[in-house]
């Protein structure tokens, strides 16, 4: 099967390691094309011999089995980034410090949010208010929902 490649702008190269890490951890339903069963990746070109202060490689591309698969991954990453940004730019001011430690469910499509004691409580509030869209959870006062302290493989 022919692979689809989509160039990444050199100005976005610095974000590639983090983006690749997040892609690798995405649930299979988001990372793997539902039509062709292949995963979407980012592939960097050969390392440049004289990097100087510039970019480390000449090119980098999104790669996948079809445009739809690449679009799907890019969309979900964009929505997650937007949810985090919505929290940082708007919700942190509204929710901190009163709701520190509680869970906020942000509807990815609309940016609407619901606060609860945990994911289930926040999701119940979203559904009760008629929101059917995908939810992304963050803990109020934190850039993530949970933290695992004990190292486990």
């Amino acid at each position: 099967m022919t692979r689809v490649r989509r160039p990444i702008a050199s100005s976005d190269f610095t974000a590639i390691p983090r983006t690749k890490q997040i892609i690798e951890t995405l649930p299979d339903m988001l990372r793997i094309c539902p039509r062709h069963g292949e995963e979407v990746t980012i592939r960097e070109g050969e390392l440049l011999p004289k990097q100087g202060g510039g970019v480390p490689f000449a090119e980098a591309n999104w790669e996948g089995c079809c445009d739809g698969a690449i679009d799907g991954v890019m969309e979900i990453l964009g929505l997650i980034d937007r949810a985090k940004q919505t929290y940082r730019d708007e919700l942190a001011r509204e929710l901190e410090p009163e709701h520190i430690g509680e869970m906020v469910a942000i509807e990815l499509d609309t940016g609407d949010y619901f606060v609860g004691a945990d994911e289930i409580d926040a999701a119940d509030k979203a559904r009760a208010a008629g929101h059917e869209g995908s939810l992304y959870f963050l803990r109020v006062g934190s850039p993530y929902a949970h933290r695992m302290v004990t190292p486990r493989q």
Partner: protein
Amino acid sequence: MQIDGYFNAQNEPVIRLDLGLASTDVLVDTGFDGGLTLPSQVANQLDLTYVGLEGFISAFEETIVAKTYSIELDWLGKRVRVSVIVSPRINQALLGSHMLKDCRLIIDYGERTVTIIAS
């Protein structure tokens, strides 16, 4: 009402948890602030309800995006709904501190006993 556990071969506190369609041993991990995490092969056997996505930080500082589900189970004499994180990056069942919020956890390394009591 109480749950009695045991120590596994790695000297970690473990309890057996009835998850409805399957039972599994879960590590009691107070370093995890959520409800439950389950490996995919265990989660696939269960009647889980999809709730949403969330990011969490592993002990290796890796940001992981995972699916969160809910499950109903009996916990210390009550029927409760609990959040369950499932990711290919998780290969161990963990019971986090959110499950322990109304409990007393007694880990007696001397007597080799693990007890969770409703408080």
